């Protein structure tokens, strides 16, 4: 998309001395090191969250209560799976990990605008996760340890229904994670708006930068609302404290749901938008074509972000809202299908006429489109409040949001991981293990979640440890999928180990994907120097959306080196 003047490719080796281990990884202010920390953190959280969901699936494999000795513990697992996957896996990986790593490089900046705040953003997260882990082991309700009120935390279950300290730990942890995200959002917005290299106008900015910019605004506007709602819960929980949500003292429990989902709906776009950005880069790279309808793609994300703030009550169709309010939320929700459709069709149009290579990241990206479309269209079904009456709080909803998250956001993460692996670490992974990982994961998550549509249509409610025997068949199938997915996780780690041990044999160059990879990260070494762009790159002002010019730019660059 952008052409780079060869004479401005910075020589950075003079600034490449790295600090000692402790200083480097604990005091870190380097955006790439912080990005790496975020990615490692995301992998660890993903393992914890994945373990919780695997245990849930094993419990549900057959009717009866077979694995958990306490029904409360099952609900704690449900709750923590949701919170950990959202706040500690997807968000840190996509925004903290890839965002930190590649936003400064892509816009031609040496680092983030506020490197020390960046350090704070990261280190708040382990603190938050520790709070959540502590909450597992302290009393929640009378029935056991931990908080079992689901990630939505609706009062009165989260106030009078969970008197123990477990939920207080969760509140503190989520507030810490929330502040981490708010600081990160401020950092990204400032960096993207102020630190773009000369010539890098907003309309030349790579789509991943656009996606993170929109995401950062969503975070900045949505998370304070969650923080406020959590504070209100906290003071409501104090004996004789406030009564924001206590109907006996004039409060309104429905108000919490409005506050929560005013945050919660933008949150789902916070999780998926960065994945959109990554997918755009990968589709473009491996079709060897510039992205189709760049402006439409960028503004579709802006539109999704804006409309995402006015549809929240579609999560609450059954709480007893006025019918006209529901009608509004139905229509507003349906509107989101339009920009989302624009994105899907633009990806297809990007591939049209391209020269498509089936590399590993491309497979994840194609898998993303396939599964995101399925998850997206079931969203259109759920948007209709009338139909949602039958489907609300059933496994249909579980299937829907796992298709867009477990297969949308997570496919986006793995796509980015395999796309930038060589760039981040300087060596390549094995084609065999990475492809095996893809296929096992692809089959596994589909076997888990596709049957859940059927369970939901037949009205199996969510968050049930035990179910009528009629639901056994599809639950059993779904649990087989959990085993396949478990195998894929094992293969992922084999892939990592194998790649690490073979690293010296698989060193990669600056632009190992070749012709189609046109953004700035492909102009610097792999791994990039400790500090890049000491001299800012200059981006061409002409219409550079054609291949000749990009090729010329590379030719110039290569001639220069």
């Amino acid at each position, binding site marked *: 998309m952008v052409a780079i003047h060869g004479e401005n490719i910075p020589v950075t080796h003079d600034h490449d001395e790295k600090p000692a281990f402790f200083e480097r990884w604990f005091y870190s202010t380097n955006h790439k090191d912080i990005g790496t920390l975020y990615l490692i953190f995301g992998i660890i959280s993903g393992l914890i969250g994945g373990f919780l969901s695997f245990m849930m699936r094993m419990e549900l494999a057959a009717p009866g209560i077979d694995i958990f000795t306490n029904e409360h513990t099952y609900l704690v697992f449900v709750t923590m799976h949701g919170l950990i996957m959202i706040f500690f896996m997807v968000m840190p990986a996509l925004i903290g990990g890839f965002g930190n790593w590649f936003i400064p490089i892509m816009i031609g900046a040496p680092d983030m605008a506020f490197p020390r705040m960046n350090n704070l953003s990261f280190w708040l997260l382990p603190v938050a996760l520790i709070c959540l882990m502590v909450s597992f082991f302290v009393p929640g309700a009378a029935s056991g340890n931990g908080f079992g009120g689901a990630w939505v935390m609706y009062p009165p279950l989260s106030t009078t229904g969970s008197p123990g300290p477990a939920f207080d730990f969760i509140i503190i942890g989520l507030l810490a994670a929330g502040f981490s995200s708010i600081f990160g959002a401020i950092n990204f917005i400032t960096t993207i708006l102020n630190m773009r290299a000369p010539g890098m106008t907003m309309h030349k900015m790579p789509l991943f930068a656009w996606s993170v910019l929109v995401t950062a605004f969503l975070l900045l506007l949505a998370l304070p609302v969650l923080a406020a709602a959590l504070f209100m819960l906290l003071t409501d929980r104090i004996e004789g404290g406030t009564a924001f949500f206590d109907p006996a003292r004039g409060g309104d429990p429905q108000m919490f749901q409005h506050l929560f989902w005013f945050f919660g709906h933008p949150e789902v776009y916070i999780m998926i938008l960065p994945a959109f950005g990554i997918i755009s880069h990968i589709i473009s790279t491996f079709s060897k074509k510039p992205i189709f309808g760049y402006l439409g793609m960028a503004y579709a994300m802006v539109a999704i972000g804006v409309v995402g703030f006015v549809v929240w009550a579609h999560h609450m169709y*059954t709480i007893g809202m006025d019918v006209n309010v529901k009608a509004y939320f*139905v229509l507003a929700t349906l509107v989101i299908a339009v920009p989302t459709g624009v994105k899907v069709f633009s990806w297809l149009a990007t*591939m049209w006429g391209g020269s498509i290579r089936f590399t590993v990241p491309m497979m994840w990206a194609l898998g993303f489109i396939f599964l995101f479309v399925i998850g997206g269209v079931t969203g259109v079904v759920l948007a209709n409040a*009338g139909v949602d009456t039958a489907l609300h*709080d059933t496994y249909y909803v579980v299937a829907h949001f796992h298709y867009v998250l477990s297969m949308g956001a997570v496919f986006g993460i793995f796509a980015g991981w395999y796309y930038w692996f060589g760039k981040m670490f300087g060596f390549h992974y094995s084609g065999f293990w990475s492809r095996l990982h893809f296929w096992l994961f692809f089959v596994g998550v589909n076997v888990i979640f596709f049957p859940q549509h059927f369970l939901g249509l*037949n009205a199996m409610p969510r968050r049930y440890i035990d179910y*009528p*025997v009629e639901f056994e068949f599809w639950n059993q199938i779904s649990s087989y999928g959990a085993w396949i997915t478990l195998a894929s996780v094992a293969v992922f780690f084999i892939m990592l180990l194998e790649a690490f041990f073979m690293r010296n044999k698989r060193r990669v160059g600056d632009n190992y994907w070749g012709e189609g990879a046109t953004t700035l990260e492909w102009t610097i070494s792999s791994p990039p120097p400790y500090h890049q762009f000491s001299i800012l790159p200059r981006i061409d002002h002409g219409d550079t959306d054609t291949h000749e010019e990009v090729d010329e730019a590379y030719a110039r660059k290569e001639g220069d080196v």
Partner: protein
Amino acid sequence: MRAINAMLSTMGVGVLSLMAAGSALAQDKQVGPESGAWFFQESATPVMDDLIWVHNMVQIIITAIVIFVMVLMAYILIRFRESKNPVPSKTSHNTLIEIIWTVVPVILLVIIAIPSMNLLYKQDRLPETEMTVKVVGNTWNWLYSYPDYEDVNEWVSNPLDETQATEVGQPYLLATDAPLVVPVGTKVKVLVTSINNMHSWAVPSFGVKMDAVPGIINETWFEVYEEGTYYGQCSEICGIRHYYMPIEIKVVSKQEFARFIAGGGQPVDKLAALNTNTTGGAAVVAANE
């Protein structure tokens, strides 16, 4: 609960015999989830008929969209693979096609929105109802009463444990000791509230799901076509026994319902069949208030 845990391992065997035993009851029609089913439960009300119709219409549209996208993607991947098409085109804009893929989805959404709105208003705007039942969510059972009939006391509907359910030939985790009783072919208004945690009163075959929120009385309605026993389950997380507060509704003829009310609201058949010493029964409830 521990007892139930221990007994559950034998559960798999009971299903078929359960259905056979079910037919021996006074009401032979039982509507709930079906083994291995992949679609809605049988519809029992006009609202559920419409709901299934709107769902099916949307389902046809989205299936067409998914097939279209998949076929197009497969075509692109085959035709424009690197070995076949080594030189990529440079096209990155086409105003006409961008307008088409914005406008066509808008048209599809309008096509979806019209019947969707009809359904929503039909479901949500109560018609002239002929009677009212009050449903109160409690942790973890349901309280039922008839505001229209002062002589009938509120009663608790507790789940049957596995032994009891097998005994009366009804499905475990769906059957209760004292179902809500309503007349067939009657527009029934339902008032739903809660006295502690949130719950949700859901009867899939009626197309009804209404949250029970403390401090707020929600209303919905249904009109059942046929006599029979209909099952539902609590559908809003409410604590440790969220999975163990089923909903059972016995739909009887208008004459039988009149007798039921005249008799003080004792759900006769069920209790006779259930001669074990269950806790709640149709007993009058003084607690929980």
